[in-house]
């Protein structure tokens, strides 16, 4: 049996301690919980079998059957979610309406937010072995029903906040797993590279949040890169709108084309890079460029996008990327990570960034801006 300390940082009580891929029959787990010799394992077993976990750190038991037909029990980190209701006001956090141990409630938006946070948590853990936003099991807090006819969802630095939409253009924002994953992704970015929310690093911040959103949905639906829609925010427009989503990562600029809203303004490569002072320098517009690079990379590699392509992007984000990173700097970081895997992955990364004009086809970086 292998016992690992969790990645919970300096806290003394490491309930994320994992009984890693061990063959642990339930009777043994129960026995283990009483063990004095294996104190850490006993603690993990107790968390799983007996006591409800403390609020700050949670664990979940995952049971599976291995190739020999043996029961495999592993204790892994679990989310700690709290959903609040702003009741149509702009006051945060609002009143608590569902916590981690409580069952579903009548309010669909509450359950959608709860489930979306859980899906994002599980993707981060499975794909990147990351325990929540900060890697240390940070509780996930969200507020629904924010504002009156409020057409937005945002990350305020501490929590995710969801409006109900105006009912004409937008429906509620909790209905899209990619939107929820996107908001949580901003939290991960805040706790890692801390990319500035302006201009090119801001557009990179937005793109990485879209990557987290897309990977969350694909992981939830068990989709490979070629099966995925690569859409962000599908289902949040009302049926009246001529559009399928807010953005298309694979085909930026094609998500909607509506008589009232106009056409999706995202560029698909650097020739369409938009200089503007609105939207913090067009962070939601120019994100289309690195979005397409990621989608092309993932589709080229094939398989589950979170496994190889996602890991390369994640390592580039968390491997010392400066807060002021440009597209070209991030491209270089991803190519370094891809090359470290193997030549074909490195070549696929170079080809993806060259396709969107961030680097030249030879691999040299092009000056942008």
């Amino acid at each position, binding site marked *: 049996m292998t016992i690992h300390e969790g990645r919970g940082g300096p806290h003394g009580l490491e309930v994320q301690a994992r009984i890693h891929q061990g063959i642990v029959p339930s009777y043994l787990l129960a026995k283990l919980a009483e063990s004095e010799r294996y104190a850490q394992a006993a603690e993990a077993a107790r968390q799983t079998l007996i006591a409800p976990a403390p609020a700050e750190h949670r664990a979940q038991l995952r049971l599976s059957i291995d190739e020999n037909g043996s029961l495999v029990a592993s204790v892994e980190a679990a989310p700690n979610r709290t959903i609040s209701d702003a009741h149509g006001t702009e006051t945060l956090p609002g009143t608590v309406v569902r916590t981690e141990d409580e069952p579903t409630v009548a309010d669909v938006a509450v359950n959608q937010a709860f489930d979306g946070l859980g899906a994002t948590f599980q993707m981060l853990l499975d794909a990147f072995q990351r325990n929540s936003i900060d890697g240390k099991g940070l509780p996930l807090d969200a507020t629904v029903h924010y504002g009156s006819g409020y*057409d*937005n*969802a*945002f*990350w*305020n*630095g*501490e929590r995710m906040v969801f409006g109900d939409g105006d009912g004409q*253009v*937008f429906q509620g*924002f909790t209905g899209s797993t990619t*939107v929820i994953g*996107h*908001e949580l992704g*901003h939290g991960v*970015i*805040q706790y890692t590279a801390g990319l500035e*929310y302006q201009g090119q690093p801001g557009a990179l*911040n*937005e793109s990485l*949040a879209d990557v987290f959103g897309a990977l969350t949905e694909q992981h939830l639906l068990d989709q490979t890169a070629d099966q995925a829609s690569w859409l962000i*925010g599908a289902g949040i427009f009302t049926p009246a709108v001529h559009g399928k989503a*807010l*953005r298309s990562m694979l085909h930026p600029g094609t998500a909607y084309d509506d008589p*009232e*809203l*106009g056409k999706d*303004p995202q*560029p698909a490569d*650097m*020739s*369409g*890079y*938009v*200089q*503007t*002072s*609105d*939207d*913090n320098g*067009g*962070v*939601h*517009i120019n994100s289309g460029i690195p979005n397409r690079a990621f989608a092309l990379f993932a589709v080229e590699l094939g398989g589950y996008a979170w496994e190889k392509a996602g890991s390369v992007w994640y390592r580039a984000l968390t491997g010392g990327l400066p807060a002021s990173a440009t597209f070209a700097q991030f491209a270089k970081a991803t190519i370094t990570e891809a090359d470290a895997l193997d030549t074909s992955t490195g070549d696929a990364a170079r080809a993806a960034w060259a396709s969107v004009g961030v680097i030249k086809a030879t691999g040299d970086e092009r000056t942008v801006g």
Partner: protein
Amino acid sequence: MSEPSADPPVGLPADSDAAGDDGVAIRVARSGGIAGMSRRWSVQPSGGEAEHWMVLVERCPWDEKPPPGTGADRFVWRIEVRIRRQRHEQVIPEEHLSGPWRDLVDAVREADSGAKPA
């Protein structure tokens, strides 16, 4: 690299001088948000209405630079005003749009509620 498809630097109606030296024109624009869609509302009050709007405008602390925004995907407001030959402009992160700024923005949105997404 293409030129931006953005608006003129000061996006007041091109014919706003037509109202003459007494003219008041106010435009508020909202950008950002997770959708990244911009919307605009404007008013060009005339005659007796102008006084009411000038009071709303003059209550705003135009010389105070608002704090920077926090988090991500929040709206950003750009408020532009012309009173006679004077022009004012301020960019305010949504979370700092309060007091007289919020009053002004809400009044313009209400007066121009027929505005379409742009």
